[in-house]
């Protein structure tokens, strides 16, 4: 988004979450935002969610995010990318940029699987005034470990330290 001629990279977490919740999208908050919920001190700049792959839910998610013009993050402009139910059904995980910030909509995550497998490992939280599901801390750690990305090592160490601190409380 542009403000006074500057490209602004601040993600409107509140609006993105509100749009999904108000459209009754079934989703689970994962990634850096979930880490913040659990007490992480690290800065995250996008919203990561795992969404249910049912046809109806995909339709709701497409409708919820459509006003923010989702486009493939990092892709050159002008690609024939259409934000539609058909597109989401033919793919799985999408890293997107929108007019209000970046969002990753994931059909599946490493070490965690699909929405239906993850949902029993969630806690219900109040996120910007909206009740939604967030991956619990042990599962968040397990999925990050399973992803095996070197850039996650510090984040995993922090999450495990948080888990130890919580158990010590």
């Amino acid at each position, binding site marked *: 988004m542009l403000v006074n001629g500057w490209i602004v990279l601040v993600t409107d977490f509140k609006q993105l979450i509100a749009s999904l919740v108000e459209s009754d999208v079934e989703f689970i908050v994962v990634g850096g935002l979930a880490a913040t919920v659990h007490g992480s001190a690290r800065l995250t700049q996008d919203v990561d969610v795992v969404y249910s792959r049912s046809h109806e839910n995909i339709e709701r998610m497409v409708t919820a995010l459509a006003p923010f013009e989702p486009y493939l993050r990092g892709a050159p402009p002008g690609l024939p990318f259409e934000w539609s139910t058909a597109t989401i059904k033919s793919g799985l995980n999408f890293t997107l940029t929108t007019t209000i910030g970046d969002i990753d909509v994931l059909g599946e995550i490493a070490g965690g699987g699909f929405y239906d497998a993850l949902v029993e490992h969630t806690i219900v939280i109040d996120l910007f005034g909206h009740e939604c599901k967030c991956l619990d801390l042990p599962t968040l750690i397990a999925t990050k470990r*399973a992803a095996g990305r070197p850039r996650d090592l510090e984040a995993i160490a922090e999450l495990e330290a948080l888990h130890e601190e919580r158990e010590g409380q």
Partner: protein
Amino acid sequence: MKPKSDRLEPDPVIEAYKKDIDRTLLRENLKRTVAERLANLVALQELAEEARRAGERVDRPRD
């Protein structure tokens, strides 16, 4: 695939990273509510963005 959220075996690489974690920050965060943690994240993001823009203003050649 089922998530494996049982207690995981310590990973020596992660344990090495863990030594450098500032636990005082984590303890302070754990005293906060979820809403306070989120408000802090938003404030941090705005601060980072302002710092980035300030850096761009310095780098941008004057007309």
